[in-house]
């Protein structure tokens, strides 16, 4: 899956992304970190650019969003429907079951999951056998070394505010 360089305008979010260079998610096992200021569109970029591109390429993905509360309710319901007895299952086990169910996925997206678990290497333990690309939105510093990252090629994608034109935010997206 590739996001070509160019302008991507999201009128309903008042965002206009300028992707400086092609973002190629097809390279060898990759860890893409998305960083940038608050309100610069990282989550919108996931939802409106990355996920539609994954769907267009028929690539399956798992997405752990920022609003973990809603997602955990949904996971519990989803797994119940699939026949799992999860009424008393703790939340980490819920996530493990869900990830284990998603082995047809090749992309895993984590949107600020590190605020719940600063050390979230267990997600990699559960998924590294089938996930090829991880996309991680984070506010953690770039110099923070994570042990699970050793096995992956790292891409640091930065979201920078160029200017605000009326209500529209022009945001540069560049791979550092």
């Amino acid at each position, binding site marked *: 899956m590739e996001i070509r360089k160019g302008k991507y305008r999201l009128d309903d979010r*008042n965002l206009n992304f300028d992707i400086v260079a092609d973002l190629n998610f097809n390279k060898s096992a990759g860890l893409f970190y998305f960083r*940038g*200021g*608050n*309100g*610069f*569109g*990282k*989550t*919108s970029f996931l939802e409106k650019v990355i996920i539609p591109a994954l769907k267009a390429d028929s690539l399956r993905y798992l997405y752990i969003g*920022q*609003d*973990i*509360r809603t997602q*955990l309710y949904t996971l519990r319901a989803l797994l119940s429907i699939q026949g799992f007895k999860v009424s008393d299952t*703790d*939340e*980490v*086990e819920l*996530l493990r079951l869900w990830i284990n169910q998603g082995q047809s996925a090749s992309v895993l997206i984590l949107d*600020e999951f*590190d*605020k*719940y*678990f*600063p050390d979230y290497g267990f997600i990699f333990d559960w998924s590294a056998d089938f996930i090829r690309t991880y996309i991680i939105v984070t*506010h*953690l*510093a770039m110099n*923070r070394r994570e042990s699970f990252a050793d096995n992956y090629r790292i891409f640091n994608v930065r979201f920078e*505010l160029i200017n*605000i034109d009326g*209500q529209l*935010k022009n945001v540069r997206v560049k791979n550092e």
Partner: protein
Amino acid sequence: MAIYDLDGLLDKYSDEFLILEFNHLFISSSIREEVWLLQRKNDSLLIDKIVQAAREFSIQEVSDERDFETYSGGQKAILACLLTLALIDDRKIHGLNILLNNVLDSVSEENRSKLVQKFEEIRLTHNTRLFTEKDGYIQEILIGNGNPQR
């Protein structure tokens, strides 16, 4: 193991702390409504104060009527902190202990520093203390030794 245990958090800490929790930042849908519920009146001065402060955090598109769900996660966290700070000042509340849960982790390094600075200012004038909880332990955040850059 719990990722998100609101009941546990409240049971443990609500007697001693005012808790700002990332997944429950507001009880209404806009700054205007939130201020109305907290002040029981349309307090335009307080709203202006929050809106002005939000602009210092580059939330240019802030307005009193805008639905919270249209802000990013980090922006919502900042707005909740600014609302709390403005209320503490307006009501001249002293000696409050505030517990931030997954709040500072939701904002950029730059905004985190600015927010901590704002809490530090109110600590000096209103004896307000700021804490976070990690792995079951409470930590106080102080300028100098507590800037929560990880």
